[in-house]
């Protein structure tokens, strides 16, 4: 695995951490993966008797890999987990295939711009068969936390 340090820096934890590993990273793009566990908490209610990963969770997974991990890399020494917060500021995602419990997904995020602490990316998610699951645009900001 590359850059486990970035995953350590993420402000999320179970049951809302949706990053397992970073596979590729440079200043233009990032690629990472996550495997949805059979017992993720949201399968209990989505849907009743028919567990499918909610679209908002797929979006969150795309944002955690494609924005948060990527942003921490791009911020370099300006990143400080104690004083800097991150927030998704917008997203527009289309969904193409369902993701079921136990499935592994790959997220690829390409930088559109990174200016004034705002990162905007074209993000796509693929399943283990390399079939497109979801695709769109996500943007997020880094900001000084009010402590």
């Amino acid at each position: 695995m590359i850059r486990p340090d970035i995953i350590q820096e993420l402000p999320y934890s179970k049951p809302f951490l949706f990053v397992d590993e970073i596979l590729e990273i440079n200043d233009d793009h990032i690629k990472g993966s996550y495997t949805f566990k059979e017992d993720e908490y949201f399968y209990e209610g989505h849907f009743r008797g028919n567990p499918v990963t909610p679209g908002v969770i797929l979006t969150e997974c795309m944002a955690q890999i494609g924005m948060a991990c990527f942003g921490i890399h791009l911020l370099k020494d300006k990143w400080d987990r104690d004083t800097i917060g991150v927030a998704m500021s917008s997203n527009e995602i289309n969904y193409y295939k369902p993701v079921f419990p136990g499935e592994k997904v790959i997220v690829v995020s390409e930088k559109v711009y990174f200016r004034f602490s705002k990162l905007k990316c074209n993000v796509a998610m693929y399943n283990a068969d390399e079939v497109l699951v979801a695709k769109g645009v996500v943007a997020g900001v880094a900001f000084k936390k009010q402590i």
Partner: protein
Amino acid sequence: MTKEELLSKLKIIIVPYVQNQEGLKNLTEDTDFIKDLEINSANLVDVVLDVEDEFDIEIDNDAMEKMLTVKASIEVIENKLASK
């Protein structure tokens, strides 16, 4: 470019990001992007990037932080255009 031309170009840029349409109708030099137009801080970045493209100027962090009102933005754009 006159101030009026500059203002009308700036207005076209901000329109897609404005949440408070009343504020847009009553646009003056004192209009505050966040308070009066309810543009969020993430979209302020898009306003600044669109300003860069429209006027072919580069806006640095210091200038960006000043661009919170119509008046301040016009001043920044005029200064950058003058130093081109």
